[in-house]
């Protein structure tokens, strides 16, 4: 299986939501919170446990046509997200 067809899944430890008081999306976990920038939250929004990396890139391209090819950006974010245990890959 190539990296593009793998399916990222948000770890159940984390809850993703919009925080009006912070004016941004956040990940919540036991006794903690990380604030996310816009591009990170746009990617996480599309991590639904069904879509592959490839599909997520396509969906982003459709949403932000002016952004160009986002393959590398998504890959870069996913490396961080896996490192921080926000995300793992389903089989």
């Amino acid at each position, binding site marked *: 299986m190539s990296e593009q067809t793998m399916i990222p899944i948000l770890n159940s430890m984390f*809850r993703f939501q919009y925080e*009006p*008081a*912070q004016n941004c999306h*956040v990940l*919540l*976990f*036991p*006794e*903690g919170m990380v604030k996310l920038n816009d591009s990170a939250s746009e990617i996480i929004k599309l991590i639904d446990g069904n879509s592959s990396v490839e599909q997520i890139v396509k969906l982003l391209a459709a949403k932000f046509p002016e952004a160009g090819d986002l393959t590398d950006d998504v890959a870069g974010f996913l490396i961080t997200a896996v490192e921080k245990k926000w995300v793992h890959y389903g089989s």
Partner: protein
Amino acid sequence: MAVNQLSETQQKVGPPLWLLAELTYDCPLHCPYCSNPTELGDKKHELSTKQWLKVLTEARAMGAVQLGFSGGEPLLRKDLEIMVKHGRELGFYTNLITSGIGLTEKRIAKLKKAGLDHIQISFQGADPEVNDAIAGRGNAYQQKFKMAQAVKAQGYPMVLNFVISKQNINQMADILRLSCELEADYVELATAQYYGWAYHNRDHLLPSQEELVEAERIVNEFRQQQQGKGPQFIFVTPDYYEERPKTCMNGWGSTFLTVTPDGSALPCHSAKMLPLKFPNVKDKSIDDIWRKDFSFDYFRGDSWMPQPCQSCDEKEKDFGGCRCQAFMLTGDMHKTDPVCSKSPDHHLIEQAITNAKTPSAPLIMRVNDPQEIARIKL
């Protein structure tokens, strides 16, 4: 200052991000390291369900996002599920901080249904003997062990909290193994903080520097073998052995809001001991308390700071340390935290470290009724 005018620090203050709801001081355990006040107040002044729900609503409206239910033992409140449900519906991340005593598989399921996000269970040691001696209750270990398994089986993220003291610091390797066996997500290995009961028992609890160095070495070695798998261990040494104080609560009145069982609102869970008049949620809204109350603004900024803090270039980092510690040790809550090596009172800390080598007073177990002070030799 005109009545309606806000001070400079009041204008700048952000929302309280953390709400700690201390639902009751009642507790089935008797840990001598307990940081609850030694005078627990009267149970009949405890907030009602309705009053708690209002606190949650108001704090969330301001932007609070983490909600901790603690105590004492929060499971003793029969209405815990109602509060969890309300908190979750408001958008809080809901944390239950429990001793595990009184938990059942059924209650874990009910709490899950109500929307509870995470459960933290405290352990007093790595085996029944040590654990139950510290907790002052038979079979506590067994119950905690079973409930930790049930918490994971029901899909919760789980934090284990080991309060480290002389009594259990030599069990570090076993504590790490136990945490792996129970599949904890995070494990706090935090030396007791010397407030409340723990302050009385400090000489008995405070480990020696050698013991701490060895314990930390064991944890670091274990971490290296983990290769990113298993629990994440967080080791917290007592600030008594540091050169600089800890940053108290991320800054007074900046992030944390504690509400005690009787409704007192505090910038930190031990602040009640200070000679300041703290507001009560029965009389004022959370917004008024956070933004306008005198006590919450009292140690914001740095204009209150005496020397050496006032002219210190590290004051933005630690805000002069812990106000409660300064008060307990020197009798003056404004003073530089004696933990700081620049503090003129630093010898008090050195004295405490020396005293801990040969405790003179007996160890006192925590009791709910001051009449029944139990003295147990560990």
